[in-house]
């Protein structure tokens, strides 16, 4: 069999956008530098070239152009709106949380808001306080939004397609360190359904739930642990809303142990919610307390040793897994 081609997350993401451009004549793109300012930014240029009338570069006005995206979606357009670093999305918070998330509900189901708010998140080395944020848990506290965190090139292509075709507002997070990462990606168009977790590595001893880039870090941790005889199952929920509780509980029922890794802050973070689901609904399967690996509750420092200290790493995750193994 011919080995599958390998392309970067960024290239795969652009293929997903291109599929939506072909599929939906009322789909357009709003925002600059969807794949950051690094070398991978060039892949977007094919979209700019092929669909010039459907690509819009707004001024630095996050509040207004995110509201524009929401309002256009309410008027029947599908819009992919890129907000840059996730910190900047707070300037758009009113459009996302007050407008896009509530319109369908408050209208009694009459209004649809097919918009995607995409942002770059995560500890990326040197991002400091305002270019490293991972606010996925904040958005998880806004009912009405779908939340998507691709962890690899293959998922990025299918998840961005599903997000853009969806009739619901979606917040989508791309981790800065995933943008240039290569992976096997099918050439054909495809969509990945929301609410279906993916087991990235099968194992029997511990369930390790991880999101976004933490999936890659967790796979590295699983390799370290495999050498020690610990067989880790890495479960990637792929979407927080809708959340695949079934797959989570099924895995915990098998392993009896849970570690959760995510880059949002520890308190009220993504890891807290996932731990709570298992504590409430699958406690009887647990053989050990649940452990979480998250960003400590401090703003993100710039200096490398300080940043390293707050970054969830394969070693920290492996240490947590060893602890739940007793």
């Amino acid at each position, binding site marked *: 069999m011919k080995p599958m081609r390998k392309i970067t997350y960024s290239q795969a993401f652009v293929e997903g956008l291109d599929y939506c451009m072909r599929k939906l004549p*009322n789909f*357009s793109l709003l925002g600059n530098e969807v794949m950051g300012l690094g070398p991978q930014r060039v892949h977007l240029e094919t979209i700019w070239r092929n669909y010039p009338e459907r690509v*819009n570069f*707004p*001024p630095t*006005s996050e*509040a*207004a*152009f*995110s*509201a*524009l*995206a*929401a*309002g*256009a*979606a*309410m*008027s*029947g*357009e599908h*819009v992919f709106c890129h907000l840059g670093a996730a910190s900047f999305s707070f300037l758009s918070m*009113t*459009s996302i949380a*007050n*407008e896009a998330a*509530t*319109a*369908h*509900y*408050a*209208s*009694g*189901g*009459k*209004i*649809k*808001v097919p918009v995607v708010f995409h942002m770059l998140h995560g500890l990326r080395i040197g991002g400091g306080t305002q270019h490293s944020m991972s606010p996925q848990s904040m958005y998880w506290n806004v*009912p*009405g939004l*779908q939340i998507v965190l691709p962890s690899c090139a293959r998922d990025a292509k299918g998840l961005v397609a599903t997000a853009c075709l969806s*009739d*619901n507002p979606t917040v989508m997070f791309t981790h800065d360190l995933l943008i240039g990462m290569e992976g096997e990606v099918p050439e054909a168009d495809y969509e990945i359904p929301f609410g279906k977790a993916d087991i990235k590595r099968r194992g029997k001893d511990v369930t390790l739930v991880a999101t976004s880039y933490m999936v890659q870090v967790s796979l590295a941790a699983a390799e370290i642990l495999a050498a020690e005889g610990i067989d880790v199952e890495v479960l990637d929920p792929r979407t927080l809303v809708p959340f695949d509780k079934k797959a989570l509980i099924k895995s915990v029922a098998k392993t009896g142990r849970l570690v959760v890794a995510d880059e949002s802050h520890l308190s009220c973070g993504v890891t807290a919610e996932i731990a709570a689901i298992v504590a409430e609904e699958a406690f009887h399967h647990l053989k050990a307390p649940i452990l979480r690996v998250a960003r400590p509750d401090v703003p993100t420092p710039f200096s490398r040793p300080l940043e390293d200290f707050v970054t969830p790493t394969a070693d920290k995750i492996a240490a947590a897994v060893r602890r739940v193994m007793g």
Partner: protein
Amino acid sequence: MMAKQSLNKAACVRVLERMLVIRRFEEALVEMSGQKLFKSHYHLYIGQEATAATVVESLRSDDKLVTTHRNHGHVLARGADPGAAFAEILGRATGLNGGRGGTLHMSAPELGFLATSSVVGGCIGLALGGAFAQQRRGRGGVSVAFFGDGSLEEGISFESMNIAALWKLPAVFLCENNGAGATGSAKGGFPSSLIAAPRLAGIAESLAIASSQIDGRDVDAVHRAVSRGVASCRAGRGPVFIECITERWEGSKPMWPELSTGITDVALAWESERMPKKYRDWHVHQDPILLHIRKLLRKKLISRAAVLQLDRKVIARNAAARQFAIASPMPRGKTALDSVYA
């Protein structure tokens, strides 16, 4: 196509009817609030009816509109069912939005309304999106943002006007400046706007947006400005900004609305000797309904008897709408979990 800048007789009467529909609706609402039929805070449009009732004359069925916390007038002027509107404010299952929105978020997407935002300035950003969609469709549709002077305190209003101007979007920024005569929270009244610009239209002019400032109580002035502005948008010449100036109605000055000028008596349009002295200024110079009736009588476009007859018809329909709402069932509590996602 040149816009028609004056309304014909039938249109003048239609505008009057819309104004009466809004007025009778809101007068009933103050009573219903007093009867504790609903408990939320609410915002009245009394004194501003000329704007909504006239703007819709220039709009097509495929145009988009966005309104605010002060939305009753806009939604009714566009033709929403008053029974469903009352029901929405009372939180009934038969409401325009099934009771999910209430007075602050009343919306009628089937009439071209986008979501109704009660975040000050929110409607301006959404209307920008409506204008973006209209431009993409290329059929000459426009998007109208109805907002008050307070919205211009919000940064999103500047950002939105800037984008609309840069991209020549067909957005009608319709500012209903009801700040004149407002007391403000410092004097125990409802907050009034705090803006350094001496003329609100000047803010839009600084972005090279075609702007005008008119008397918002004067149906003809509103129609001239709006029909011209909408035609300009349809022709692809970019956004327009229209500042309609109205006096803050006495009843909207306190924190909670009051029917301080009484139930409207349309005969005061010609029986000036019966006007209560205390509110003479309102009845003579400010109430847009009385002003419009006087003008129609002067131009012989309507008779006194026809005015009374029209008002009676509106009052009867309003009473039936009110009854419909009061008789309507509440939604079942557990349906609160429905319709979060499409």
